[in-house]
């Protein structure tokens, strides 16, 4: 029996899994605080103070919190979502072949780079 070629799927699957954890833990937490608790007035009025948040995300600890937020709140969830889209296309029998992969993971990469770039902009402006 001939040996099948090794799939590159472990890379995408690892990003998908990491993104899944973010989707399950961080994103609900963000939605709970930013979209529910704060509008309902459950948090102090100044909890989302611009200067304070800016300080946390871009200045304290070399802007590490901002990097974590971009990575875990945007980049990894993007790869998670596009992995699902990629396999969903296969399930719908849209035979996009290699192009489907380029489209899915390419767009996730592009948006991730953009998000990291904005974080870097914030970093250098602080």
């Amino acid at each position: 029996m001939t040996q099948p070629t090794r799939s590159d799927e472990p890379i995408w699957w690892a990003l998908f899994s990491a993104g899944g954890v973010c989707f399950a833990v961080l994103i609900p937490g963000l939605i709970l605080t930013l979209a529910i608790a704060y509008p309902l007035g459950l948090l102090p009025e100044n909890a989302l103070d611009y200067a304070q948040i800016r300080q946390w995300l871009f200045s304290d600890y070399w802007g590490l919190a901002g990097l974590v937020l971009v990575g875990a709140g945007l980049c990894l969830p993007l790869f998670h979502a596009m992995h699902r889209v990629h396999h969903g296309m296969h399930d719908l029998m849209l035979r996009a072949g290699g192009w489907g992969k380029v489209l899915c993971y390419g767009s996730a990469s592009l948006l991730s780079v953009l998000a990291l770039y904005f974080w870097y902009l914030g970093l250098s402006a602080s």
Partner: protein
Amino acid sequence: MQKTLVIQRYNPEQDHKPHPQHFTVPCDDSTSVLDALLYIQQQLDPTLAFRWSCRMAICGSCGVMVNGIPKLGCKTFLRDYKDDITVEALAHFATEKDLISDMSVFLTHLQAVKPYLINHDTRPQPHQQTPKQLAKYAKFSNCINCGLCYSACPQFGLNPAFLGPAALTLAQRYNLDSRDQGKAQRMPQLNGKNGVWGCTFVGFCSDVCPKQLDPAAAVNQGKVASAADFVIGIFKP
């Protein structure tokens, strides 16, 4: 009590495509689908073709679709169905005749993962194993090769080259066995796109497995093993 079975009939020598045929059978609380099929074959229509052997969920040969769900005929009872019961050959396999499926793809896939102990030690004494080592793979070792999980798997339906739940579960079963030394020979099959990576974790295989093997869990353990193998492969080409 009486019940109606709607059986998908197909004779490749006469029929263009399968067609349903109704049979009414007597039944009580202990009548299985297999019992009903045997009644039909012996009393109503001797040409009805289906496979069976043990009648006790151990030989794995009586798999059929019952109301669209893969089931063992001998482990499925008429009492659990209110209305007419449709019985068809297993999905995702070619049909040879009536309820008999061509399982050869399944057997080829099983063979591909070398589902047997590979150990180069030729000394005569037994290979001992602790209960803890046994527990690692015991839950994956009860497969009866019925193929129900292949009929349940949409990925196998889309791509028959996908090794599929039972083969990947057996690979994992032997890879986890402390007496086995064949993992390096099995990994290339698992690492391919038709190996563990053909699975999208639908999980229906685990629902239909009559031996509660949880093939979906085994395949996903295989993904972790294959990902680890991928990383090792980068550093050790």
